[in-house]
């Protein structure tokens, strides 16, 4: 059994337990969110001992070389000594420039980083406030088109960070950001390829950014964006996206309402149902899926069955920390 050394304590790991599980089980305040290797909130640094390759998958080379790894994926095979990591290597400061409501439960937050951030539209950052609380948010902005960084944050019942952003965060205060992370973004090189984008809730934020990025890059194949919400108020960018569609013949936006009798101009049903109904054959398409995990996972399977290559499907499931208190089971 591997021992995990953290700060001044040594903890005995249990079989198939991750470093994160071991630390949490012993009451350590380790940072985490998704517990599946997507969000990077749980990143730590190994100062002694071997890190399994899988626990470093997707990290930048510079971080890997310094022993950074994802504690939620790290099932150590031998004793390991870990630390929280050098803050300066991961985070930089950013100032809140504005906050405005886009819908009653969605707000737009604009930030200016201390040094310019090199990122792709559609990637995400980890936002950390002064007391250490940290959450992942997708970027809603496009390099070259938008001067500042932008998030669309949905207020969640019981959500510590989102309620703080809505109720207490002040314009002018500073937060820490880590990133950019994730590989859900536009890749130039095939300007005629069809792009299907399906999102619900604030899953729209990265998708709208990717669509604007692609159009700005001269993409001339069809770009079909489907956004799902229960009620019309949740289709929070529809005016802007309908304008974008009016200005670009190859871009279309469909607001999908799963509630009762949608008003004219909207499709009825869940975004993924409407999308797969209208585009039944996805051979050769690239597919972007962002939003709640059941939608994203179900749509990924359907997109594959509809003919899309798995490597052409970019999925970003928004995992909620408040649902992730229990360890995820080890893979079989």
């Amino acid at each position, binding site marked *: 059994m591997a021992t995990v050394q953290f700060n001044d304590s040594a903890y005995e790991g249990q079989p198939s337990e991750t470093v994160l599980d071991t630390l949490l089980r012993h009451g350590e305040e380790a940072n985490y969110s998704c517990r599946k290797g997507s969000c990077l909130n749980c990143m730590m640094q190994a100062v002694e001992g071997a890190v399994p390759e899988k626990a470093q998958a997707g990290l930048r080379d510079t971080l890997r070389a310094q022993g950074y790894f994802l504690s939620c994926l790290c099932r150590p095979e031998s004793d390991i000594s870990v630390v929280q990591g050098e803050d300066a290597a991961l985070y930089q400061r950013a100032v809140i420039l504005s906050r405005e409501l886009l819908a009653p439960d969605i707000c737009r937050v604009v930030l200016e980083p201390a040094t310019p951030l090199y990122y792709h539209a559609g990637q995400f950052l980890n936002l950390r406030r002064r007391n250490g609380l940290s959450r992942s948010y997708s970027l809603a902005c496009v390099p070259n088109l938008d001067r500042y960084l932008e998030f669309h944050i949905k207020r969640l019942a019981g959500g510590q960070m989102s309620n703080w952003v809505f109720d207490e965060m002040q314009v002018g205060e500073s937060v820490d950001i880590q990133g950019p992370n994730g590989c859900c973004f536009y890749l130039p090189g095939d300007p005629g390829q069809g792009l299907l984008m399906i999102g619900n809730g604030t899953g729209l934020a990265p998708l709208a950014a990717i669509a604007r990025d692609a159009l700005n890059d001269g993409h001339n194949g069809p770009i079909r964006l489907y956004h799902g919400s229960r009620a019309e108020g949740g289709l929070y960018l529809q005016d802007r996206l309908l304008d974008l569609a009016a200005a670009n013949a190859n871009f279309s936006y469909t607001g999908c309402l799963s509630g009762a009798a949608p008003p004219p101009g909207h499709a009825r049903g869940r975004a993924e149902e409407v999308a797969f109904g209208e585009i039944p054959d996805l051979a050769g398409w690239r597919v972007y899926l962002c939003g709640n995990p059941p939608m994203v996972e179900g749509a990924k399977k359907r997109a594959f069955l509809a003919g899309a290559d*798995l490597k052409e499907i970019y999925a970003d499931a928004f995992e909620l920390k408040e649902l992730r208190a229990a360890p995820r089971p080890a*893979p*079989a």
Partner: protein
Amino acid sequence: MADTIYQKIGGEAAVNAAVDMFYRKVLSDDHISGYLDNTDMDAQREKQKAFLTMVFGGPNEYTGKDLRTAHAKLVEQGMDDSHFDAVAGHLQDTLSELGVPADIAGEIMTVAAGTRSEVLNR
């Protein structure tokens, strides 16, 4: 030295052509899809690819022991001959849709049939 089946049908390119077709068939079949772990489809596809590489006689690390270990839990959950036969049927269909000549397809199906006792943990 005579070409192996793997070389005759076109090596890794043939496996790549077959794997998506095969995986889509298996995933669409409600009788067996419940036994697939779809939480990580990319990993699942890699497993299908390793399996096809093995039955096509290609270079692989896949052994009977792996097959047994990988499926033991599923057998406990009720996987039986009917599921094995269904997957074999999808493999047969994949080969015929890809136009693999009957004699070669026969050899491949013989290799696949030989994995039954490992897969079903007998």
